[in-house]
């Protein structure tokens, strides 16, 4: 009988346009949309940054060799135009009004200091909110500095290698999969959890409050089917809807990389392909199942008690925030699954998924997280059962 109720409710749910939108259409499209917006925005930023001619205000009383060498910096380091200023006050004013983007102050005694082989104090004026401008000035000055260093070594007849005690090289021992998992891995579970929750929401309201509102529950309760079987049949559809929303989300990721080719960077592409392995998918579902049963279990008592669709929605929607906020913990690098975080619902699943993506899973912690969620899911089912058994809640 549970399956009979489940079959009917699933058919009914799949014919509801609003639910199909939340369960299939939006979860499938969200990742490709985010990716294509992100790619086109980042591409246009890169292009704009490369093509942008930066106006550099130059405060100096003479055209010395530093000014002359700055003018000779190749265009490969970015297009530029130098504008002379007589004082720093007017330079700061110009930076604030964005008529120049960055300023360089060269002291009057620069030539003497250069001749005496002493360091010149050059000041870079920049607006911290105008990203990338300080780096542009740094790049130009570093270019000139490197050339001058070479000239000085030649003048002093010094072999550069002899005054270089060591050269540093960096080797990253973390795989690109680990890098993505630890630094950006919180984003994926966040999506799955958010859509899992939203996927459950409309079916839960429709199958419980909706039945009350449409007065169909009364006839259903006069059939010789125990209430717990009706509850389980309906709950099955709510849970399946949440899992389907997460599945279509996963499908959206697959479409983004395999069909739409939205990820261009070969390293990131390979890392995402490594992440989306069958083992990852099985583990992800194992973690999502108790979480989504828990979601269904907290939504159903609210939906059973609510007198109208609007009332149920007004209670469940803010609940969304309570779920989304802990899920955002995964965004912070450095927050990891440990004996404490494994006990915090939602947070534990986000962090376990993050570790799973990075491939740095500790099984005893995953077992703890899974156990906590299973326990909460059981409590939520019992609560749903109590509410659904109460005739005052079911009949309006």
């Amino acid at each position, binding site marked *: 009988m549970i399956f*009979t109720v489940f079959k009917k409710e699933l058919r009914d749910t799949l*014919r509801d346009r609003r639910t199909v939108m939340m369960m299939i259409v939006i979860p499938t499209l969200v990742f490709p949309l985010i990716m294509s917006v992100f790619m086109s925005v980042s591409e246009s930023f890169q292009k704009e940054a490369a093509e942008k001619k930066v106006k550099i205000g130059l405060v100096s009383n003479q055209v010395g060799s530093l000014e002359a060498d700055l003018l000779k910096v190749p265009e490969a380091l970015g297009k530029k135009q130098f504008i002379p200023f007589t004082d720093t006050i007017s330079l700061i004013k110009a930076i604030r009004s964005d008529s120049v983007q960055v300023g360089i102050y060269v002291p009057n005694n620069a030539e003497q200091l250069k001749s005496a082989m002493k360091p010149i104090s050059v000041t870079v004026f920049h607006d911290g909110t105008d990203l990338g401008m300080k780096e542009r000035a740094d790049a130009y000055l570093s270019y000139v500095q490197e050339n001058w260093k070479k000239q000085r070594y030649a003048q002093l007849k010094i072999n550069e290698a002899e005054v270089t005690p060591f050269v540093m090289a960096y080797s990253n021992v973390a795989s690109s999969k680990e890098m993505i998992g630890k630094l950006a891995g919180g984003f994926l579970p966040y999506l799955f959890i958010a859509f899992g929750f939203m996927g459950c929401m409309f079916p839960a309201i429709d199958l419980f409050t909706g039945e009350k509102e*449409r007065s169909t529950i009364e006839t*259903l309760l*006069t059939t010789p089917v125990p209430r717990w079987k009706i509850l389980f049949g309906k709950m099955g559809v709510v849970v399946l809807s949440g899992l389907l929303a997460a599945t279509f989300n996963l499908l959206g990721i697959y479409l983004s990389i395999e069909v739409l080719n939205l990820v261009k960077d070969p390293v990131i592409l390979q890392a995402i392909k490594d992440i989306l392995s069958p083992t990852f998918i099985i583990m992800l579902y194992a973690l999502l199942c108790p979480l989504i049963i828990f979601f269904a279990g907290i939504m159903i008592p609210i939906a059973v008690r609510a007198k109208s669709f609007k009332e149920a929605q007004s209670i469940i929607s803010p609940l969304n925030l309570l779920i989304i906020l802990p899920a955002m913990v995964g965004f912070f690098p450095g927050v990891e699954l440990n004996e404490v975080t494994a006990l915090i619902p939602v947070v534990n699943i986000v962090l376990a998924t993050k570790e799973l993506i990075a491939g740095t899973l500790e099984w005893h912690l995953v077992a703890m997280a899974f156990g906590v969620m299973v326990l909460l899911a059981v409590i939520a089912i019992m609560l749903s059962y109590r509410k659904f058994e109460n005739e005052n809640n079911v*009949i309006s």
Partner: protein
Amino acid sequence: MIQIEHLSKSFTLNRQQKKELGTTQNSVLAVDDISFECLPGRVHALLGPNGAGKTTTLRMLSTIFKPTKGTILIDNIDAVKDPQEARKHIGFLTGSAGLYARLTPNELIAYFGELYGVSKNDIEMRKKKLYDLLDMHDFQNKRIGKLSTGMKQKVSICRTMIHDPQVVIFDEPTSGLDVITAENIIQLIRDCKNQGKTVIFSSHIMGEVDLLCDDITIIHKGKVLYNDTMEAFRAQQQAPNLTAEFIRIVNDQKTETL
């Protein structure tokens, strides 16, 4: 057959309900120690003004509500102790009940047939018979949400009768329906009676009661005011018509209470 003895139902009030009713009591007694019997092959009218406890009584009979006290026997099955078994014998039709708008009549009837444990063959056989009787073939595959009120009512009748219940409960089945659609219900009640089923019928329309019913129970404020055959009711009648007589009985009770 339905046998009701000393049946009572009280509801616990929450804070908001207490405020709405203007009471400090924690519970309200909707049905207060009522007893009556409905016999097979007869139509039993359950009458009472709004808030008398009719719907609560019918909901207890159909096992949606559990009585606070008393017993209900449906075809000799204790509906309080074994509600699931009792439900197999009951068909419940209310005027206010909705239907699943996104299903077709075929899907809905098959669903309820399965819930009542009717075999697939029997569902098909009974469905055909009911579709012939109610002229439902033309819209059997259309979504219920797109059907007219009359068509929907026919679907409701079909849903109520798919498991061939021996006891049929009608709670204001014709309320809000046009004359032609209401006639379908009246005909169904007559058919049930002719087939020897036990029918209990709640209505506000005294014309329907006069036309259909063999026995009558009037309840008011949860208590039985009158319980006898329609014949006896007509014989003791003091007012010029049945509606006036019903009002007189209810008013007499009010005066006695005062």
